[in-house]
């Protein structure tokens, strides 16, 4: 089936350039993503940085990068909220699966067992 008219005709869709981020915004987001990645890698080589602080820092930057891509590049910030529910709901289930498996097998990133 041809995908020829749906997006432009949808009331929830956007005309070109309308309601979406501009090219300048995309470039700015990409620069921020690059800087965050550089900080993450640089943090590995900081001598004497406590392990729990390093793990917290890495997880925080990772979540920030994830959120930036989803919000701006995937346009979830500008799109219908129903799409956010469709994605974020299963994302929370996935996070629960990860935490449940780790708890089952006694694997903790920050806390020591016992």
């Amino acid at each position, binding site marked *: 089936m041809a995908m020829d008219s749906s997006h432009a*005709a949808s009331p929830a869709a956007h005309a070109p350039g309308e309601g979406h981020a501009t090219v300048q915004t995309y470039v700015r987001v990409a620069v921020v993503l690059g800087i965050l990645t550089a900080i993450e890698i640089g943090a590995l080589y900081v001598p004497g940085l406590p392990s729990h602080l*390093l793990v917290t820092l890495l997880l925080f930057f990772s979540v920030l990068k994830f959120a930036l891509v989803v919000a701006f590049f995937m346009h979830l910030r500008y799109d219908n909220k129903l*799409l956010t529910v469709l994605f974020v709901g299963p994302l929370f289930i996935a996070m629960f699966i990860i935490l449940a498996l780790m708890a089952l097998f006694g694997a903790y990133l920050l806390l020591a067992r016992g």
Partner: protein
Amino acid sequence: MAAEHAAVADNPNIGCTGLDHRKMGMWAFLGSECMFFGSLIGTYLSYKGKSINGPGPHEILNIPLTSLSAFVLLMSSLLMVLALAAVQRNDMKWGKIWLFATAMFGASFVGFQCFEFTHFVHLGLTLQTNRFGSTLLVLPGSHGGHVAGGVIWLLSLWVLAMRGKLGSQDTLKVEICALYWHFVDIVWIAIFTLIYLIP
């Protein structure tokens, strides 16, 4: 305005939510993919540090090389969004360039991963070696398969564009592909941090 609403009413792909079924379907698919990768990440983290024999992460993982490939994939997301913006404004010259560049960045990432996996095997780490080997090769391997699929999808769109069969009226085709492509990027953001960076 009335003509636009009439067009919406006539379009079988627009449901009562006012959203295109194909776009909603892609988001639902990405949600299910979150759970797929969540299971693999959870298994990797559960088995982390529990291998009886080596080699282990410190002997195998090449952080500088993987950082470079992570950066390549991250920047391919920028190229993808530039391709979508170009197609939306019917600038097919730049649309073709950005689509092809995104595919090439994706192909480079797959190349990095093939090199990395070959290196693992040379160092004695295979699926059968230990728990670290099986979980390490399955998780980034599954992701690499997704990236390879995305590259094929991007090249298909590029071929359509080269043959003059892709224009601003086909924005949704590119947008759905872009959603998939950004998803493989965010999955790598998680994998890169959890496997490669966290000690």
